């Protein structure tokens, strides 16, 4: 291995973008080496420059991007010396790239087969028949069912997971030596993500392809990569083999990153979340010296803010480097100061009661002429649960499981087909929002997922909060409402001066705080939070989560926390409701759901969550196939098409009957045909290795 040159060698690379205002240094002094057959992970928050590195390697920086220093060597050849023709040859044949959005990478007007065949026909001038044969082989390699049919299909006829497999297949068509994956699974559901990641790992071994894996998810990188490079604000801050960096980190940012993410193997008392203070610096507002300085716990004036920091190699490990002047002085094993959160006082009072809730949609095949072939989409199937005051109830499930429909019914944007919903004894299920009184509307509010979309860009922050107050009938006049608006800003820990700002002047985390302030404006009794932090960066996720919990504790609000991220769910919820295709398949307290017995789907969901902790051992359960469409659900048990446990049930019962609800323990219920003994014999998904 020492004789072959590295596949990719980036040395002191600097990339800048020239805009009309100023020059923006996106990447500075960045070095990384990828050896043959090796997978290197590039980790950092949005805006840290990791995607820019990838584009720089591809020499695809657009009109105003410029490489202003350093070198990129591909297989020992300097890429800056290549002309356009040579670069075209290298791209696609030697280096292939996989992007985040599979649909955007595929041409919707061409069949999958034609798109795959194009690659070798262009790069290797082989015949159409040969190219088709290879396409078939690659499609088989990415484990798509019925490859012949897939080749003749158009992209829109495949699901998101299948599309991403095709994109991977396309990248592999030219047998590249280097594969760059830019957040390849961010747009996919967790169980689908787990399957795609497993595939990428296997293919990497089979084809011997080197990989540069770009992600913000430390868990994913741990599962796929051999080495890791952590980036912060345009610089590599720590670099080394996965195990060394994860177990023996030597940069404060890496440490802070790990402390900010919840680990599903451990609960909140073992490892509380610690938010990184402050905000990510904008490229033109970087401090002197260490970029992480202002947010760092170990900051020391004079040492950290004087000169640019150089990358230093650890004395005891030549393969592990860090960009910190004080790494030798810091006690990296010092225990975390556990800020034990006051236990949430869950009262016995039931705030929300849902009984036998059903929501069906009629979907006519053709709105204009149809009529006979009406289909029914069963978005929610007999949901029943209670939520108490001050309780956090998590609803977990992948896209299409019906959690958004449930939220809509609670909010009154849709009315239930059947069943009852009551809030503090007041019926809600069939009262659309326009018939609800102001107190009820203010009492049931929502926090939305996308912070960049949750505020009206044309209205100041203060106006938007005051509008909510006006609607909920709070405050008698402008002055009173203004005062209340300031209090709400205080509540979400934003400066009062923000009331005059327009949303585009706020960062993602700040916008989400305004969203929370708005949701609590009407003294909400029930707040539905739809993945409130999933679009935020790791370092602000923790802060927003803590804030949400703080306010909830103070107001004794019931929080319905919709999420697919099991780590965060384990961290903050009291009870969990697992949904699949409109059914509640499992419900119980957090401990009950995270421990066996599991519903087979819960088991797969837990196993799919990537964990950024080398101490946690995880059993592998990978689901095959995709989530069935809600338009055309399978017969019997909704999960039977992907279930590994199906053979244990006799007489193909799973395919015929919807399973009954089994009560296993107090408040723990599972919707499955498996008998209680089989369920009790399940092995736990996580085990923490003894230290």
């Amino acid at each position, binding site marked *: 291995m020492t004789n072959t040159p590295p596949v990719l060698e980036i040395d002191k690379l600097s990339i800048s973008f020239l805009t009309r205002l100023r020059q923006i240094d996106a990447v500075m002094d960045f070095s990384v080496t990828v050896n043959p057959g090796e997978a290197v992970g590039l980790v950092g928050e949005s805006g840290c420059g990791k995607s820019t590195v990838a584009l720089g390697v591809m020499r695809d920086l657009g009109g105003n991007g410029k490489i202003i220093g350093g070198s990129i060597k591909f297989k020992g050849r300097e890429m800056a010396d290549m002309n356009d023709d040579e670069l075209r040859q290298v791209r696609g044949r030697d280096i292939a790239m996989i992007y985040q959005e599979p649909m955007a990478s595929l041409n919707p007007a061409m069949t999958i087969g034609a798109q795959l065949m194009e690659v070798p026909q262009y790069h290797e001038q082989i015949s159409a028949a040969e190219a088709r044969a290879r396409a078939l082989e690659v499609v088989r390699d990415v484990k798509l069912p019925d490859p012949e049919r897939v080749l003749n299909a158009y992209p829109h006829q495949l699901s998101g997971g299948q599309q991403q497999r095709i994109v991977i297949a396309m990248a592999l068509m030219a047998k590249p030596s280097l594969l760059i994956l830019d957040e390849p699974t961010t747009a996919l559901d967790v169980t689908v993500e787990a399957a795609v990641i497993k595939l990428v790992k296997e293919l990497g071994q089979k084809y011997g392809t080197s990989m540069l894996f770009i992600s913000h998810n430390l868990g994913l990188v741990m599962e796929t990569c051999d080495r890791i490079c952590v980036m912060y604000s345009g610089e590599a801050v720590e670099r080394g083999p996965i195990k060394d960096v994860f177990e023996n980190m030597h940069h404060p940012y890496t440490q802070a990153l790990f402390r900010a993410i919840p680990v599903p193997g451990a609960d909140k008392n073992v490892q509380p979340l610690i938010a990184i203070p402050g905000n990510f610096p904008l490229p033109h507002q970087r401090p002197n010296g260490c970029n992480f300085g202002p947010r760092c716990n170990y900051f020391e004036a004079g040492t950290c803010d004087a000169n640019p920091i150089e990358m230093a190699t650890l004395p005891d490990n030549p393969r592990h480097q860090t960009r910190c002047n004080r790494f030798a002085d810091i006690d990296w094993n010092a225990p975390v100061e556990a800020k034990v959160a006051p236990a949430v006082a869950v009262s016995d009072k039931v705030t929300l009661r849902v009984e036998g809730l059903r929501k069906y949609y009629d979907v006519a095949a053709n709105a204009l002429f149809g009529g006979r072939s009406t289909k029914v989409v069963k978005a929610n199937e007999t949901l029943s649960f209670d939520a108490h005051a001050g309780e956090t109830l998590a609803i977990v499930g992948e896209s299409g499981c019906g959690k958004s429909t449930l939220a809509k019914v609670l909010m*009154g944007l849709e009315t239930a087909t059947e069943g009852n919903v009551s809030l503090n004894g007041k019926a809600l299920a069939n009262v659309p*929002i326009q018939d609800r009184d102001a107190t009820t*509307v203010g009492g049931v*509010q929502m926090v939305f997922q996308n912070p960049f979309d949750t505020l009206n860009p044309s209205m100041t922050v203060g106006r938007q909060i005051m509008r*909510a107050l*006006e609607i909920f009938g709070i405050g008698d006049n402008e002055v009173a409402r203004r005062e209340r608006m300031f209090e709400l800003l205080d509540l979400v820990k934003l400066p009062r001066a923000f009331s005059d700002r327009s949303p585009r002047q706020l960062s993602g985390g700040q916008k989400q705080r305004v969203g929370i302030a708005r949701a609590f404006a009407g003294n909400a009794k029930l707040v539905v939070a739809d993945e409130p932090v999933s679009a935020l960066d790791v370092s602000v996720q923790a802060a927003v989560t803590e804030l949400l919990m703080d306010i909830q504790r103070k107001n004794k609000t019931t929080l319905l926390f919709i999420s697919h991220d099991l780590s965060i769910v384990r961290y903050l919820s009291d009870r969990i409701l697992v949904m699949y295709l409109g059914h509640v398949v499992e419900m119980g307290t957090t401990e009950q759901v995270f421990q066996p017995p599991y519903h087979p789907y819960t088991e797969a969901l837990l196993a799919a969550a990537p964990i950024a902790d080398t101490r946690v051992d995880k059993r592998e359960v990978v689901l095959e196939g995709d989530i069935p469409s809600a338009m055309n659900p399978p017969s019997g048990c909704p999960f039977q098409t992907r279930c590994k446990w199906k053979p244990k049930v006799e007489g193909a019962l799973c395919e015929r009957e919807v399973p009954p609800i089994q009560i296993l323990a107090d408040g723990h219920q599972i919707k499955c045909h498996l008998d209680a003994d089989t369920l009790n014999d399940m092995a736990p998904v996580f085990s923490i290795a003894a230290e």
Partner: protein
Amino acid sequence: MENLAGLDHLLKITIRFWPVWVAMAIVMIPSFSTRRNTGLYGQIFESRIGVIGFSLVSFWVFTAIFADVIMTHDPYATWGGLKNALPGSALRAPAEGIYPHALLGGDNLARDVFSRVVEGSRIVLTISPIATLFAFMVGITLGLPAGYFGGRMDTALTFISNLIIAFPVILLFYLLVTPEIRSGGPAFSFGGDHVWRASVPNLLAALIFIFPTIFFCTLWQSRFYVRPKLRNILIAVTLVIGIWGYLGTAFDYDPTGLLLIEPGLKNIFAIVAIVGAPAKFRIVRGLTLDIKTRDYVAAAQTRGERPWYIMLWEILPNARGPLIVDFCLRIGYTAILLGALGFFGLGLTPESADWGSTINEARRLLALYSHPALYPALALMTLVLGLNLLGDSLREASQKD
């Protein structure tokens, strides 16, 4: 008095436009130096196209504003020695205090072409934006609910707008000129010697002129129904102005006589609105379909906002970018349409100085004397070009970030 020799008349014209130059300098220099801090407006000054477009448009806007200072003569009067006179000709025996030269010559009726071009800018730049605004009002008021509610209402409104688009515009023009149609219909009187005929153009005007009042009343009601005191004041003011204007413009019934408009103008507004509204309707409907999926619209719904609040205060302000761009382009088309309508005798009164009518009138002697038609044509061309360039640069800038 001697005729002006060579290019002297151009020099004199340049001097004559001095208020425009001063005003342009006052506006453009600070705009240019603060362009980095003024958002979309500042982006205009980043591109050469934007600067050219902005200069051309602001030139004509300031010409319209300072028309009284710039004009050398009364644009509607005839002057001795100016019949078909060439640019730079001297007036025959001008009285004391009368400008001695016709800088751009005279027309067939011995009127001063220069003054008529300047006066024309005032007419064009008043009528085109207002007429375009009516088209937008109609398009927005119908496009928002079509996009937001969808379903049957959307199908019906889209169908009607397709019908109007499919209807030959020229036929519509002819229909409106036909005397039977113009003066047909039952007559109504609301007192005094006032008579209003329910003819097709009058009915169309009556339909279109009600939109601004409806639009603003809905705007206030949807937002301020939670603050009744403020709402009542705003709606009362809107209704007083709206009904007064509506009676005056649509029904020729205004005791004060301030808001009466001539029949030709009514035709213009009716036609511009009918021709323009379907296109605006489509743009607004498309934007609404896009914006209504945003979370802030969902947030408004979950706090129980009424549909019209969401449409007018959550969706419309965020659709403003494409609408402003389209508005710029549409003013240009309307200016051309004014000229085209002049050809059908549908425009303003024949002696009007607007550019379309002037070109139409001068075309009869075009082979002999081209200048009476040439200068208004140049003016129209530069204005439309400027608006197009401005619209283009705004579109580019709004897509950049």
